């Protein structure tokens, strides 16, 4: 079920799709978020202007990243924040561990950070004797269940409340059979309060890093980041190099869209800015590359770094909604996961977990051209000789067939004949995986070309 598996997206999705009613439920839950997003976006007359600004601000930032990162670093240091640089996940984890070990940290409370998932930080620290407690409710649920997140904003969206109830009964002692979300949330509140109060250090991700202030912005609805960071002496914030924004004016543009596009709320409950450590405390920021500078060297892939991780593209994606977040080989699922994880996809399948419908690009608050990037990944896979499912064998033939008018018309005529006279069971195997969950089309009487000749041509 996890991303360590090398099964293809289609194979993983098949597991998820065994329970059809669950698929419908999952799809509807996500579509509800899309509808809330539409209402929130529609209530702001300048929404499209904001999207354009969001895109331009992020592009400006990405094209001046070296300067802005250095400016951010210098300003952080002036504010008493210690800045660290990590080339990859391993370096990131080592830096974090060094800081924690220096302070004899036994328990770390962590708020949501897809970056630490990407770096596989939890197991690294746990192997070294540090207990890591995920404090976002959804993250805590999947941590207790031993699963990876299936969504970047609502990580336990794949689980039903009864399953959460059973899990909490076993792990934190809630009543057997209880599944009321309010009851379960209150129980988690009590359970996690104890963790916050006994933690030796806290860690968060970063939504935005404000270069001219030397401050990090952290957004949550639950208040877990602020409860974590403000109790123990040591606080750590991990960020990808793409999290930089030049100034607070830029942050305002993105903050106006982030929550509206994620869940339809006008803003997250807490949008906190940390511009220095607490009295007597330490504040560390770890800036991570882990493949991002390489992405910037490809003009098309580079634009995926404009993403602000609202999750809007997941909620609208017809493939994500019907295949679940655990079907993707990368930590981040859905369209943005394909965009930023396509190059690391050893199953060579996730760029095809997409219909190229471009709904994702249409809702993206920073106008990441997701469909274009996903299509580009297919080309990159082809160029690298990594086409999946024998596509490498039949695609050149398809190309030849489509390139020749005679061959194409002739084969289409044969197909129409076959669809009319042969039973589906005989024909379906020719459609391969495509035909597995689809009905074959009803054959038209004649070709479009034939119809056009008779009806429209002079």
């Amino acid at each position, binding site marked *: 079920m996890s991303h360590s598996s090398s099964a293809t997206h289609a194979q993983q999705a098949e597991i998820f799709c065994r329970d059809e009613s669950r698929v419908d439920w999952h799809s509807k839950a996500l579509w509800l978020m899309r509808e809330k997003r539409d209402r929130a976006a529609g209530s702001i007359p300048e929404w499209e202007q904001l999207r354009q600004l969001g895109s331009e601000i992020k592009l*400006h930032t990405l094209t001046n990243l070296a300067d802005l990162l250095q400016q951010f670093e210098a300003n952080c240091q*002036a504010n008493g924040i210690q800045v660290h640089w990590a080339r990859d996940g391993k370096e990131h984890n080592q830096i974090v561990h060094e800081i924690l070990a220096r302070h004899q940290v036994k328990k770390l409370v962590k708020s949501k950070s897809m970056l630490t998932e990407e770096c596989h930080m939890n197991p690294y620290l746990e192997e070294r004797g540090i207990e890591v407690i995920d404090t976002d409710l959804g993250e805590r649920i999947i941590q207790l269940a031993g699963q990876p997140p299936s969504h970047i904003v609502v990580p336990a969206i794949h689980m039903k409340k009864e399953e959460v109830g059973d899990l909490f009964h076993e792990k934190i002692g809630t009543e057997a059979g209880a599944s009321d*979300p309010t009851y379960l949330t209150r129980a988690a509140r009590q359970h996690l309060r104890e963790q916050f109060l006994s933690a030796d250090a806290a860690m968060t991700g970063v939504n935005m890093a404000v270069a001219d202030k030397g401050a990090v912005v952290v957004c949550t609805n*639950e208040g877990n980041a602020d409860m974590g960071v*403000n109790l123990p002496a040591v606080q750590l914030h991990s960020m990808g*190099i793409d999290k930089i924004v030049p100034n607070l004016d830029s942050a*305002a543009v993105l903050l*106006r869209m982030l929550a509206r596009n994620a869940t339809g709320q006008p803003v997250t409950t807490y949008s906190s800015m940390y511009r220095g450590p607490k009295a007597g405390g330490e504040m560390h920021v770890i800036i991570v590359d882990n493949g991002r500078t390489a992405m910037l060297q490809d003009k098309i892939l580079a634009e995926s770094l404009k993403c602000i991780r609202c999750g809007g593209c997941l909620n609208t994606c017809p493939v994500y909604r019907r295949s679940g977040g655990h079907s993707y080989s990368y930590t981040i699922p859905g369209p943005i996961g394909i965009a930023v994880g396509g190059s690391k996809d050893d199953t060579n399948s996730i760029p095809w977990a997409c219909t190229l419908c471009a709904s994702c690009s249409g809702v993206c608050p920073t106008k990441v051209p997701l469909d274009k990037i996903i299509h580009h990944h297919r080309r990159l896979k082809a160029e690298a000789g990594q086409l999946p499912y024998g596509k490498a064998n039949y695609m050149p033939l398809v190309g030849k067939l489509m390139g020749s008018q005679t061959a194409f018309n002739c084969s289409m005529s044969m197909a129409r004949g076959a669809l009319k006279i042969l039973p589906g069971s005989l024909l379906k195997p020719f459609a391969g995986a495509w035909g597995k969950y689809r009905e074959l089309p009803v054959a038209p009487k004649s070709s479009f070309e034939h119809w056009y000749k008779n009806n429209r041509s002079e």
Partner: protein
Amino acid sequence: MPGRNEILSALAKSALDKQPMPVIDIAPNMQDLTGQFETNLAMVAGTLHRDATLELVQEKVNSLIAEGLQVLSLVEGVTGNRTLPATPHELKDIDYAVISGELAVAENGAIWVTEQHQHRVTPFICENLLLVVAEEDLVANMHQAVTKLTLESGSCGAFIAGPSKTADIEQSLVVGAHGACSLGVYLV
């Protein structure tokens, strides 16, 4: 730091052409800011007390204390029954914290709250939060808010929009996750 230099030199190989910073020029909606604020605050599960006074806040605090609750006030002119403890952890049994907000944002119901004493955790750890904001500090949108807010070097601040909440279990909204379980805003 080898990592730093390597990352910075790798950035020099970026394929993107330089893009100028856009001009952010969005006309604010100045119509009935208090009304907008009230609507949006309600949307994020907070409650507004319009035309309030510090005396009114004190009355509320007195009634809470009479119920036997622990109230900490950081607002000058409002007195609770608790004082600031030595460690932030000792704030865990505060039922109500009364704190002043610096700005209120009409478009989303958020209130900018800055660090006001050595324990940054106060507005988050209290069971319930009461924020006192001057009506003249109401701004239309986030663009205006960020030009006015204070964020001193070495400090922190937060936009707080309503009580803490989550919808992580089957998308059903539960108010009261890790932070305050309710938020009352007094516009004075």
